[in-house]
């Protein structure tokens, strides 16, 4: 080990640059890994909430449905006639802020409370109660939004210029609903129509959230609804979960892809450094072989050196990454935005990865070193 560090120290500048190359990559991997971890946390929270309900939306819309197509609340009443349906609640959502910036979009979600409370019951309250029928002018806040608005049960908050009395605050799910405000459908519709004066309809919803009766299989019920309501897009819990997973997989792939490109470049610089080291030390290798070092002994020595470069870079890069994550999270704290999650994977993963990267990148130069013919390498200047 001492010999390895001394060898690395021989070419301080070069070793530093090589390590720096990987540090940048590992930094990216750590930070983006933290972002992915946060994303997965939200996705998992969302999956849990979606588990019990079926969504019915106009055909040709996606999950968020900002396409300006609507379904009538009258359809919700028809759906409620289907056996096995406990309730079908029209949902209308409005963004709370024009520009959402970085972080979770803050949403105002209006449910036909008498026909189903949407996610509220699923999440449960930490304070107060969920909305009930006839709760006009009342609001239940997601945990992050409540903190941000400094709201407490019984207090009043102003959303979209209208006063609402807080009747409940939801438990934290770490998912997007933490930044939502739940209000009765009529209140949300009023705000929605005020914002979109060209829409002259009443009884419209962006989607209908269908809750199955106790003991009714949601997938089977979704299949029935698909048959009976062909003109709509019916999404079963499993399908919704799949869609969310797809989105998160794509995001993760993009995010980690960027980090891996950075690391690929870092890996190339390790290869380069090790090739240089091997050529510089050809004579040394010849000597070691002359005094009896076996091929695998030399291979081991060079692999160890490359791995240590990777390890050092991994630790440094990861520490910088954690520093940045903590910094960003603290900066986002005031506005209650958490972009990163620090998990064991985020901390240990990049370090292990960098070490393995070093070893892999060092393998071929090391093999080249180990295979040198002692007679020829001793002649080398």
């Amino acid at each position, binding site marked *: 080990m001492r010999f390895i560090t*001394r060898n690395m120290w021989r070419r301080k500048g070069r070793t530093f640059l090589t390590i720096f190359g990987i540090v940048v990559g590992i930094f990216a991997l750590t930070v983006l890994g933290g972002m992915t971890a946060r994303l997965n946390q939200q996705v998992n929270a969302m999956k849990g909430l979606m588990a019990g309900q079926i969504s019915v939306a106009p055909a040709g819309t996606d999950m968020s449905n900002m396409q300006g197509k609507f379904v009538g609340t009258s359809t919700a009443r028809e759906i409620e006639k289907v056996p096995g349906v406990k309730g079908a609640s029209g949902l209308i959502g409005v963004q709370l802020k024009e520009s959402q910036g970085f972080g979770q979009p803050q949403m105002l979600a209006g449910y036909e409370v008498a026909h189903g409370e949407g996610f509220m019951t699923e999440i449960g309250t930490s304070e107060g109660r969920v909305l009930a029928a006839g709760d006009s002018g009342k609001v239940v806040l997601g945990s992050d939004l409540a903190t941000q608005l400094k709201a407490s049960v019984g207090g009043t908050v102003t959303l979209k210029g209208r006063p609402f009395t807080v009747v409940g605050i939801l438990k934290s799910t770490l998912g997007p609903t933490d930044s939502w405000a739940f209000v009765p459908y009529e209140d949300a519709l009023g705000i929605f129509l005020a914002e979109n004066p060209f829409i002259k309809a009443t009884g419209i919803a962006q989607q209908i959230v269908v809750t199955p009766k106790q003991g009714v299989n949601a997938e089977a019920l979704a299949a029935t609804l698909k048959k009976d309501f062909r003109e709509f897009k019916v999404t079963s819990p499993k399908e919704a979960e799949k869609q969310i997973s797809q989105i998160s997989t794509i995001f993760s792939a993009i995010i980690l892809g960027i980090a891996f490109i950075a690391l690929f470049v870092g890996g190339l610089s390790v290869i380069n450094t090790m090739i240089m080291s091997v050529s510089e030390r050809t004579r040394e290798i010849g*000597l070691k*072989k002359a*005094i*009896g*070092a*076996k091929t695998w002994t030399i291979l081991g020595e060079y692999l160890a050196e490359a791995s240590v470069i990777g390890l050092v870079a991994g630790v440094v890069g990861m520490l910088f990454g954690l520093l940045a994550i903590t910094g960003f999270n603290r900066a986002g704290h005031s506005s209650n935005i958490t972009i990163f999650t620090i998990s064991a994977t985020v901390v240990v993963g990049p370090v292990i990865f960098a070490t393995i990267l070093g070893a892999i990148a060092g393998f071929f130069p090391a093999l080249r070193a180990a295979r040198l013919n002692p*007679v020829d390498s*001793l002649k080398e200047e």
Partner: protein
Amino acid sequence: MSIVFTSGLTKVYQVGETTINAVAGLDLDIEKGEFLAIVGPSGSGKTTLLNLLGCLDVPTAGTVTIDGMETSKLSSASLADIRREKIGFVFQEFNLLPILSATENVELPLRYLKVKPVERRRRAMEALEKVGLAERARNRPTQLSGGEKQRVAIARALVTEPALVLADEPTGELDTANTVKLMELVCDLNRDLNQTFAIVTHDPMVAERTKRTITLRDGRIESDEAVA
């Protein structure tokens, strides 16, 4: 007792179209405790012979037997074993590792022999004492003179108590005073430890201090004479 024994030892190099018979059917017998100089003009095959004796190179034909072990059929790993256990090398350019201290350089062969650290240190110090460099043990090669470096290299060759020490132009980079000192050291080691040495050299001053001189020409032994 024969330490090294060769029979019909041949090494042929192909350089482009030309075939070079670097060593051409050489029979040689070196006894335990011998002190031998191998001399001859450039290209006479001295270094090739030394590489073959040291198991750094494999013969095209013929055999090399070292300490009773016939080496021509051995794998490269087994040849490494023989080099590690039976042979010590001394080179013209010293070939000390710059990142290691004198002691650590001397310890290196023991490291490859998997000798325990404490034992390694003890034997390395012992070897450095033998070459009179105990007080320079902690110095790096850059802090040593040429003569001192070569003495460290000799200590490194001796530390494993090899059957045979092979030296290729060990005084090639030394001035006269240091050459004389080094040869005196080698003479003493040969006499006191009964250590076998085979030295390839150009330098008559070196050759005349050995006990036997083999002159090579065109890969063959031209003369083989004991020095009085």
